[in-house]
Structures are given as structure tokens and as C-alpha cells.
């Protein structure tokens, strides 16, 4: 079963789907939606099969495929997945059908072609799967750059009022990061022995001159820090997240930003172990600043989508400290955080999108007491908010807890400061919910006819799987941790750090 070329088929499938959907004429919008949904479900099924075929105790990289591409540069179509990539691929496969269903009516009012929107979504899925499945740095870079194009057009063509500005800012920020990375990729290729293969490069990692390695690390890190985004490279995300259609915004923060943290784990750490350790204090400081600063900004937001974007930046701070704590718990917590954040913030964005679609406004001040009109939807928003602030019993709690204990064992100060971020998270989530759904009814709300309709069947189908997964993984994260743990351990081994003796009883994640 392991010989089946899962990853290449998984990558190409959405691309073919995008072409098919793009060919559907404008007038047949419903057909385009159905095809896109069906296509993403096929991808989901294939991903589930791949998940089952993945051997938990097996090799670090599985499903390896390699095809010649540019022999004179030794660039190859190499795909391989470790546990980290596997869970991210699974998250992508789960989120896309949900987002497609959630976006069903989002662009009907648009002057643009509806099939184009869904084709762009599938094209985006293609680039996302490719970037996580690639095990050749050249191939990774290619996906890293071209993922901008579908998202650029999604934001620019189908977004809110400030879409042009947001789309261009998004593109330029990411491109700047990408070009830094290009310089680093070229440098790595030259000093790493003219190969792009991840395994070969990781093997040659020790032989790179110390200063060179630090510069190369920086090139990669800046690209990933912009993508993630970490403070102070984050300013594009609130604009992009605020302007993008809600579904696309869910993908933007739920999946695409994970490329940054994934890239740090997969490329920065194993390829430049010494540099990673050298830069770790700086990265930790940035991450901690990000947690507090973004949370404070989130508290002050009056725009729902921008608010959720800021919460994401804070969450990426947590992922960052988990990674750079260099403990297995912290690392596992971070990867788990990436998945759980995708589910929780994805849900939050989608629900916020449902509110915004009804009210026709992003502003918190345009709501108020909405729970009286749409009680079930308000309940879902409440749940999504609680998941997002990592309430025990929801999946994000596990990951946040792991990150914090993983960090606490080595960097007590950072862990303590980061914990303050949890309190701020409670503040921004609860205050947002209070101002939108609780309290006295905003008198303008009943004048909006759409606000009278509570959650529809389609919307129930959209949120149900996410809610189920968040609760399920909140109580039983083992299927994920079993897959993630060996990969994180291998990564920490690459970095050359040992876990401190466990101080938490019964937490035998380590060896």
C-alpha cells in the first residue's frame, strides 16, 4: 500500500479539479460549486486512506516519491511526508470541503464569475498540498511562491471594500519573504553540494560554515516569519484577513500561515541546527511580544475579521515559543497547535463570516444582542470563541498546555509571560462575544431581514464537523500525537538538543 503514489496524486488532484471547474461556464454556477465540493471530498477520502496507510512507528519520511525534473541542478519532484506534514495535509483535506460549502453563497452577489472563485479555491488547495508534501527544497520554493497567486486573486477579486490594497500588500509582503528565501535557497544549494534533496541537505548540514549557516537561516526564517506571521512582520495579515471573503480568510490563517511555522520546523531547524540554537533567544522574544501585542490589538478591534486575524497572530506566538523552546513537548504542542488552531480559528472565521453575511457589516458595533435574533448561531460563535481561547475540553487547550509546559521546563520567564496571553485571549474573545451577541439588542439589527434567519441546514453541515473534531481532539488527541511525536523527536535530534528531565509527572511523551 505504501507504494501507492499518494502524495503526487493528492497534489495534482485539486489542480485538475481547478481546471475542470474553471471550464464550467458562468451561467452554471451551481454545477461549479457541486463539482468543487465533490472534488475536495475526493481529496479528503484519499487523505484519509493515506492517513490509514501511514505507519505510526515506521520511517520518519514515508510515501517518498521522486521523479527527475532539472537534472543539471539536481532539482527533482520529490514528495515525502513525515508526521508533521501528514497532520497538516489532513487538516487541509478537512478544511477545504468545509470552506467550499461555507462559501456557497458568498460570491453570488459578486460581479465576477462564480466558477472562477471555486476554481481558485481548488488551485489554492493544490499549492497548499504541494508545499507540505514537497521534500525537495526547489519544489518547496516553487509551491511557496505560487500559492500567492490564487490567494491574491481570491482577495483582490472577491474580497471586501479594501481588497485591492490588502491583496497587493499581501502579495508584496509574501514575495519579499520569498525572495529572501530564494537567496538563501541558492546559497544553500551552492554550499550544500549542489543538491535540493532534503535528506542530502540535512545530512550535509553539519559541514556548512557557521557564519554562512546563520545567514542562510536568516533568509529562510524571514520568509517563514512573514508567512506565519510573527511580530513584527505581521501587518499584512489583519488587512488580508479583513478583506478576504470569510471562507478564504479561514484558509488564509487556518492553513496558509502554517506554512511559515511548518517551514521553520522542517527546514530551518534540521538544516541549520547551530544557527537555530543561536537565533532561538531572538525568536522566542519575538514570539512572546507577538502573543501579548497582538492580543492587546485584538482587544481593541472593532472589525470582527481583523479581530480574528489578530487573535491568530497571538496564537502564532504560542506556536513560535513551542518550536524554539526545543523540547519535545513544546514541539509536539506546537504542531498540535497548528492543527487545532486551523480547526478553531477556521470555525471562528466561518461563523463570523455567517454573521457578517447576514448583517452586511464587519463591525462589532453594528451588532449587539444578536443572540436574541439568531440564538443557535450565537451559540456556535460562543463555542468557537471558547475553543479559540483554549478552554479545557476543547482541542486547543491540549496544545496550548503542551506548549506552555514544554517551554516552562527550559524558559520559565517566557512561559509565564505567555500565560498572561491566555488571560488576554479570554478578554478579547469574551468581550467580542459580549458586544456582538449579548446585551441589549442593537435597534438596527431587526431592520435587517437576513438577521431573522438562524443557522441554516447548510451552515449546520459546515460547522458540525469542526465542532465535533474540536471536542473529540480535546479529549482524545492521541491519534495526532502518536503521529506527530516521532517526527518532532527526530527534528529535535537534528537540532541536537536533549529534553530536560521531565518535571511533570505522568507526562511520558519524551522517550
Amino acid at each position: 500500500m505504501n507504494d501507492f503514489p499518494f502524495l503526487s496524486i493528492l497534489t495534482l488532484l485539486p489542480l485538475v479539479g481547478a481546471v475542470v471547474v474553471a471550464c464550467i461556464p458562468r451561467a452554471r454556477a451551481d454545477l461549479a460549486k457541486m463539482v468543487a465540493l465533490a472534488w475536495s471530498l475526493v481529496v479528503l477520502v484519499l487523505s484519509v486512506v493515506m492517513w490509514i496507510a501511514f505507519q505510526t512507528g515506521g520511517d520518519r519520511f514515508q510515501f517518498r516519491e521522486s521523479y527527475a525534473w532539472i537534472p543539471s541542478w539536481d532539482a527533482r519532484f520529490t514528495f515525502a511526508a513525515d508526521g508533521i506534514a501528514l497532520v497538516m495535509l489532513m487538516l487541509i483535506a478537512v478544511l477545504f470541503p468545509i470552506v467550499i460549502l461555507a462559501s456557497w453563497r458568498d460570491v453570488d452577489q459578486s460581479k465576477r464569475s462564480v466558477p472562477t472563485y471555486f476554481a481558485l479555491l481548488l488551485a489554492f488547495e493544490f499549492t497548499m498540498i504541494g508545499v507540505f508534501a514537497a521534500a525537495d527544497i526547489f519544489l518547496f520554493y516553487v509551491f511557496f511562491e505560487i500559492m500567492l497567486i490564487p490567494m491574491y486573486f481570491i482577495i483582490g477579486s472577491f474580497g471586501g471594500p479594501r481588497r485591492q490594497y490588502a491583496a497587493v500588500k499581501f502579495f508584496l509582503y509574501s514575495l519579499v519573504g520569498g525572495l529572501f528565501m530564494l537567496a538563501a535557497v541558492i546559497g544553500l544549494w551552492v554550499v550544500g553540494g549542489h543538491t535540493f534533496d532534503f535528506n542530502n541537505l540535512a545530512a550535509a548540514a553539519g559541514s556548512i560554515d557557521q557564519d554562512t549557516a546563520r545567514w542562510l537561516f536568516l533568509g529562510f526564517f524571514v520568509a517563514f516569519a512573514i508567512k506565519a506571521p510573527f511580530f513584527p512582520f505581521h501587518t499584512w495579515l489583519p488587512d488580508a484577513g479583513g478583506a478576504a471573503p470569510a471562507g478564504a480568510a479561514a484558509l488564509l490563517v487556518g492553513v496558509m500561515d502554517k506554512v511559515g511555522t511548518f517551514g521553520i520546523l522542517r527546514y530551518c531547524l534540521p538544516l541549520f541546527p547551530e544557527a537555530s540554537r543561536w537565533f532561538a533567544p531572538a525568536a522566542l522574544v519575538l514570539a512572546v511580544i507577538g502573543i501579548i501585542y497582538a492580543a492587546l490589538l485584538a482587544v481593541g478591534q472593532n472589525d470582527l475579521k481583523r479581530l480574528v486575524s489578530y487573535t491568530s497572530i497571538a496564537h502564532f506566538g504560542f506556536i513560535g515559543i513551542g518550536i524554539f523552546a526545543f523540547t519535545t513537548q513544546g514541539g509536539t504542542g506546537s504542531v498540535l497547535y497548528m492543527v487545532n488552531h486551523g480547526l478553531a480559528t477556521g470555525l471562528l472565521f466561518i461563523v463570523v463570516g455567517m454573521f457578517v453575511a447576514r448583517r452586511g457589516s464587519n463591525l462589532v458595533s453594528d451588532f449587539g444582542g444578536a443572540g436574541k435574533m439568531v440564538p443557535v448561531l450565537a451559540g456556535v460563535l460562543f463555542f468557537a470563541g471558547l475553543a479559540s481561547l483554549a478552554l479545557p475540553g476543547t482541542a486547543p487547550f491540549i496544545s496550548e498546555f503542551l506548549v506552555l509546559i514544554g517551554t516552562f521546563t527550559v524558559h520559565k520567564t517566557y512561559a509565564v509571560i505567555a500565560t498572561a496571553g491566555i488571560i488576554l485571549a479570554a478578554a478579547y474573545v469574551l468581550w467580542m462575544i459580549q458586544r456582538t451577541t449579548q446585551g441589549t439588542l442593537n435597534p438596527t439589527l431587526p431592520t435587517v431581514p437576513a438577521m431573522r434567519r438562524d443557522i441554516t441546514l447548510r451552515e449546520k453541515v459546515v460547522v458540525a464537523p469542526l465542532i465535533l473534531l474540536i471536542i473529540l481532539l480535546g479529549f482524545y488527541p492521541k491519534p495526532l500525537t502518536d503521529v506527530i511525536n516521532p517526527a518532532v523527536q527526530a527534528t529535535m535530534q537534528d537540532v541536537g538538543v536533549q529534553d530536560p528531565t521531565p518535571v511533570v509527572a505522568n507526562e511520558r511523551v519524551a522517550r
Partner: protein
Amino acid sequence: MEDLKLPEIDYGALLPMLILFGVACVGIIVEVTTPRRLRNTVQLSLAALGVIAAFVAVIAQHSTRTITIGGAVAVDGPTLFLQGALLVLGLVSLMLIGDRSLERGGPFVSQAAITVGSQKDVKQAGDQPGLTEVYPLTVFALGGMLLFVAANDLLTMFVALEVFSLPLYLLCALARRRRLLSQEAALKYFLLGSYASAFFLFGVALIYGFAGGISLGQVHEAVSNPQQSQILLYGGLALLAIGLLFKAALAPFHVWTPDVYQGAPTPITALMAACTKVAAFGALLRILYVAFDGVRWDFQPVLGTVAVLTMLVGAVLAVTQTDMKRLLAYSSIANAGYLLVGVLALNEEGLSSTMFYLVAYGFTVLAAFGIVTLVRDADGEATHLSRWAGLGRKSPLFAAVFTFILLAFAGIPLTSGFTSKFAVFGAAVEGGQTWLVIVGVLTSMLLAFPYLRVVVLLWLSEPGESTPTVSIPGFLTSAALAIGVIATFALGVVPAPLIDLTRDASQFVR
């Protein structure tokens, strides 16, 4: 008195050039013997057939490595590769030049000497058929370029420089619309070009004084074992370089580029952007790699500074442009900077990656200017950027193609722009020129902005009142566009065959 010994001439190796010069001469005879209504078809077919025949001759010579005709011409890997590239790009340019479907009479004027603005001028802009001398002129220019990249001594190189420059000066002046701009462009190009040629010639004289000979081999000998003052060497090299930097549009010798690119008839701009660049860099490569290899440590920092300056000037000024042709001109200046980064790697990868870049860029820029010819209103091409707003709404296919071209210029993967940048930057890091690569990457970020602005204009802006229409291209322009776009995509996705070809060809004979 000794008997004069005639040099050996390898006619086979010279065949591509002989074919082109022959065809151009025949073209002049055809011009006076063919009836007017047939002239365009006959001339176009003749020129195209000549170029194709020359290309076949290049292919047939693919394994030739020789210096012939008394050391004047070197036919080696780079020569043959660049000649092949010039011929293919030249053929695509000919398609753009030959298109008569976009405008009555084509993009060229019928009588260049008529006073601008006079009644006769208005009449000829309206319905007179265009000049057909453009075909022999183009073929002459191409022939000169072929010789330019093959020249193995400095005088031959100078002659070739003039042979390909003079027709280009003329061609620049022949735009059907905006006659004044076109004439101004031609005059500027001619005057500045003459200065550059004079510098080049003076450089040849100094180098002759230094080396006691003009063949590149002799210069190489003299450089590695100097008998004369080094001042002659450095002065000569500097003056030679000025001549070549001018043709390649490198800063600070780039100032003619935007004016000439804007004023010249767009198909001629395309020819210059694609083919002149190949020729100029071909000659620069040969001079630096073959003759002056021994003083590489001396010229590398100077030319490195030139490259940095070029990239910065091109990128920064591209941001401020409001005219599509000027924008593309500054973009081509910046690209000349990237090419020079590849050249300065001064290793085999540098040579092969620069050649790869030249071909990749040539196809992309041909397609870009091809598209510029399509966006028209009643007064001809509408090149002001504001006029392009919202064209994506009206003509999605056209806008998609142009977006693709712009992404290629910006160096986004899956286009040849990415692979070629990767190739030259990789070679430069290999050659120890990391600082140039860093500047290259930084300017790429700057350059992305104007390209992106055009994409925004095309797709995200609302169409204005005066948005021009995109003409349905005729067969020739469509074919040229298709070739350019397909090559841009193919070289981005499967660059391996061409990379291998450039690697096999990356050995000069000395």
C-alpha cells in the same frame, strides 16, 4: 617580396551569416523589381525563409569548433548557441514586424521623410501601405548580430556592431503613428550610438597599442604576459566596455533606452529588446571571458558596480513609469543588470546561465511587446498605463496572458523568469559574487511592485470611459504571442533541455 597567402575560409561555418547577408541583398533587389501589391508578401516570405535557412545552417554546424577567415570569426559553442537564439528570436520578431492585420498598412510609415503633421502625413498615416524595406533592414541587422557574437577580433566586432546598429537606427524612425517621437528616438539612438561606437573604436586602438594585435587570442596573450603599459590595457578595456554597455543598456549608459523603446515602432522595440540584448551580451561575454580573463580581478568590481547601479536604476525608475513601453524599457534595463550578474560569475555556469537567461527573457519580452501592439484606440496603440484599467473585464484571455508575462518578469516560479533568475544567481554565488545576488534579490522585490500594479490595473480596477479595445490579433501576431508564452511557460516548467544545451555550448575557443 613574399607571396600573399590567402587565409583559409571555412564557408560552412560562415554559412548562416552569408545566407542572411545574401538574403538581405536579394531583398533590396526584390524591392525594386516586385509590383507593390505583392511586395510585402514576397519580402516577408523571403526574410522568413532566409532566417529559417540560416537557422538550419546553424543546426548543421552544431559540432563545429573553429576559428576561420584569418582569425576574424570564431565558431564555437557560444557562437552557435547565440546565433541560433538570435535567429529564433529574430523570426518571432519578424512575425510581429510582418503583421498587417492590426492596422491598415502595418506599423510602419510609407515615406519616412514627409514633414510631420502635414496633410500628406495625415493621409499616409491613414491608408498608405507601409515601407517594405524594413525586411531587408531587419535581416541586415540580424546578420550583423550573428557576426557580432562570432567576432574573434576587435575590428570585426566593430564592423559587426555598425552593421547591426545602422539598420536599427533607421528602423526606429519608421513608426506610422507618433512620428515625432519616433524620429526623436531614432536621432537619439543614432547620436548616442555613434558616440558609443567611437568609444569602442578608440578602445580598440588602445588595446592594439597594448597587445600589438587585435585578435582576442593575442589580447589574451598580452594580458597574461604584459609587455606594454597597463594604462593602455585598462583604458582600452574601459572604452571597449562603454561601447558594449551602451548596446546592452547598462547604467550609466542606459538613458537612451526608455526614449528609444517608447518611440520606435513596437515590433522594432521587441526586436531590440530581445535580439540586441542577445548580441550585446554575447559580445561582452566573449570579450571578458576570452580576451580579458587575466584581469578579471580588476574589472569584476567595476562591472559589479555597474550591475548594481543598473539593477537599482531599472527597478526604481520602473516604479514611477506611467507608460507601458517605458515601463517595459526600465524593466529591460533591470534585466540587463541581472544578466550582467550572470556574466560576472566568470565561470562556466556564468556563461551557460547567461545564455539561458538571454533566450528566456527574449521570448518573454517579445510576447510582452506583442501584447502592447494589440491594445489600441483610434490613434494607434494606447500605451498609457491608465488606459489599461479594467482590460481584464473586457478581454480576460488577453489579460490572463499579459498577467502571466508579468509574473514571469517578476520571477514567479513556473515561468522562465524564475528559472533564469535562479540560474544566473546560482552561478554568481558560485563565482563568489554573493553581494550582487543580494542586490539582485532586493531589486527584484522593488520590481515586483510595478508589475503588480499593472496586474491590479488589469483585473481589479474598473474600466474607464476611454478604455481602449484589444484588437483581435492576426495570424502572425497570434503565432508570435503563442510562441513567446509557450516558451516562457515551458522554460519555467521543463528548463532541463535548454540548460543542458547551454552547458554543452559553454566553451569558447581561443
